[in-house]
């Protein structure tokens, strides 16, 4: 019997909305988000500009939509990079154990002990502050936690009898790893990937806020928030709406992540 899960529903709706914004903006936006219009500078929300305009007279709705697309694509690519790298490292480390595992894990733990944001800042100064710099920096910063989760899952899996059974069937180690170990690690990976999507979004916003993210004039929620800061007394909507977007998206991701964990966690399966 499947129970009604309100967090899955609300989370799904919020994230659905985010992706909808990101997709719709490719072919339609209420205004051109890049067009400067000093005549309609810092206008409050109105019928023409639903959420108002910024200090250059650009439409906030359109900029939020474009920012959503940037954020979604950055987050997806970052998570993808971290998952691919982290899973490979975790699989190799957990499956082989021994010296390889020890060496990899020493590096991994050292990276984990380093604040992810700080690591990303350092890497950004190497790769340069642009979209791809962010993806590589955040992707590398998140790789150690993926590696750790995958390694843990693999270590407990490799003692299970079906892994031993595969080895007695004369299957190569690589085949066993890809056919039996990897698919059984997917549940924790999906859950981690979901929450990581949220972290990335937040970090990307934070980096943009610090001026180290996607360079203006291209909008992201983070740099819009930063740009709104000097005008907080005259035009609060400049900071409120990007902030609201970030908060709602994170809420949605956390709810969805919880719901996914409940569905995928074997402990929760078949519970009375």
């Amino acid at each position, binding site marked *: 019997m499947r129970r009604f899960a309100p967090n899955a529903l609300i989370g799904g709706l919020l994230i659905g909305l985010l992706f909808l914004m990101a997709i719709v903006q490719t072919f339609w936006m209420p205004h051109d988000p890049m067009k400067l219009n000093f005549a309609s500078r810092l206008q409050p929300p109105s019928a023409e500009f639903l959420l108002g305009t910024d200090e250059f007279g650009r439409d906030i709705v359109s900029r939020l939509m474009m920012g959503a697309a940037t954020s979604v694509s950055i987050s997806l690519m970052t998570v993808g990079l971290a998952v691919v790298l982290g899973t490979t490292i975790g699989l190799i480390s957990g499956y082989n154990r*021994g010296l390889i595992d020890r060496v990899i894990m020493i590096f991994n733990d050292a990276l984990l002990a380093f604040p992810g944001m700080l690591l990303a800042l350092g890497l950004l100064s190497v790769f340069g502050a642009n979209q791809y710099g962010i993806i590589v920096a955040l992707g590398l910063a998140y790789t150690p936690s993926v590696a750790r989760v995958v390694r843990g899952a693999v270590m407990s899996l490799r003692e299970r*009898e*079906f892994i031993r059974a595969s080895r007695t069937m*004369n299957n190569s180690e690589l085949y066993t790893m890809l056919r039996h170990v990897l698919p059984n690690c997917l549940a924790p990976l999906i859950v981690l990937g979901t929450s990581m999507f949220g972290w990335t979004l937040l970090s990307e916003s934070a980096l943009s806020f610090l001026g180290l993210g996607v360079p203006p004039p291209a909008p992201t929620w983070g740099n819009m928030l930063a740009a709104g800061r000097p005008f907080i007394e005259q035009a609060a909507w400049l900071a409120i709406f990007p902030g609201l977007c970030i908060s709602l998206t994170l809420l949605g991701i956390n709810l969805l992540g919880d719901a996914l964990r409940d569905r995928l966690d074997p402990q929760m399966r078949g519970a009375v």
Partner: protein
Amino acid sequence: MSLLEIRNLTLEIARTDLAIVKNVSLSVEPGEIVAIVGESGSGKTQVARAVMALNHRAIRRRAGQSLFRGQDIFALPDREKRAIRGSQIGMVFQEPMTSLNPSLTIGRQLLEGLELHRKLTQQERLAKVAEMLRRVGIQDVDHAMRAYPHEFSGGMRQRIMLASVMLLEPALLIADEPTTALDAVIQRDVMELMVELTRSANTAVLLISHDLPMVARYADRILVMRSGEIVEEGAASDILARPQHEYTRKLLAALSWRGPARAVDMQQTPVIAVEGLVVDYGGQQRLFSRSQSKRALKGIDISVQPNEIVAVVGGSGSGKTTLGNVIAGLVPATSGRLLYDGKPVLPGASGYADWRANSQMVFQDPYSSLDPRMKIEALVGEALRHEKRINRQQKRERVAAMLTEVGLGEQFLDRFPHELSGGQRQRVAIARALICNPRFLIADEPVSALDVTVRAQVLDLFAALQKRYGFSCLFISHDLGVVEQVADRVIVMQHGEIVEQGSRDDVFDRPQHAYTRKLLSAIPALAPTAGGGIEMRWRQAAG
């Protein structure tokens, strides 16, 4: 008034009409040992829990009462329930690994009960705990009081658990499969200790078990349960000798019997031979040091003839599982040789692939030996991966044919392991091992995780398949009853060494080594009686 009286108890799963215990009545008199016997899902554990009103909250009482000294436990307020639990009704569970708190010392855990339920000075409490630990066979009491549960073996933990429960001298002890997780010899020791402790404190025992012969040895009365109902009740000796209900007869028939000895040609080249096998565990390379190694096998020589089933028996820690793992190539040997068809096999050598293709393994736990994400067709078919020139359709047909052979049908092809029962899963595991028609099979406790009647069916299937395919088999087990039924030859192991080996009849009827005799004393010799029942004879440990 009986000490415990359960009247017309019916339990159901909440929010459904599914009754899991149906109209059960039983009574336990002071000092009496009453056993409930049944297979998994029979509801025996739920009845035991109902005695203390400890059922899972999803299980609801529909009707009936559970009266302890005339009081209905279900109707008592929580405070009074707690006063009875522990103090007047004690409970011992199956899993000694999890029923003691790992983060408290043994002394602390034993004192806790006395502090809660008895008004004594600390001095008196300590004295009582020390005396009880001595009685359950702990040598160094002072050390044990300060030790943590993980420092003890499973058998010792179960003794400590018994000590902690019997310390309060409850009027009733509920023992739910107290020895199932232990090997046969330790099982007997723990049972005898339990009987001795409860007898001297005049504690009644409600014993829950699936093991009919074991129960019959210690219980005064037996109740047989099936699908939530009591189907038969009577004195222990009567149930065995003159079973009335068809299900009881089926349980008795499922016990392992010895068949006629088979002739095995010992002159042929052994399919597999092991010479001077030594395995060291541990000795792991840490970053800067090497951990202390432990010798698991100390120079083992065995051989298995074509068409022969050789059983390896021994208690936990005897090295029998390690032996199987080394032969299966799962654990590297420290030294020694492995000969297949008289030729040494080494990884990378020319004969190695042939050897690997001809040796397969069946594991103990059918719940973890099948990849939960694969369908049965893929699981069984995976063993055919190394066969060339076989297309999908042919593969599917061969898998279907093999499934039919192990008593499952084609309809199982598209199912997932979790949709199957334990017995069905073990059949799938056997199908997977045999589909390539291997010459040699390693079976590591293949039926230990199965219910009694299912176990009998799987063993019959195994014997039939062996006859048909003629594979040789190394059958690893701690259950001498099962070994008596299937083995041609028996090897007894203790502490990583072979202490005795010989034909089945020699080892069972004329055991030479003291350890073999000790193992045999834990299982009964069975003989059928006229009434469709059995007569049990227990072998002596000494002489």
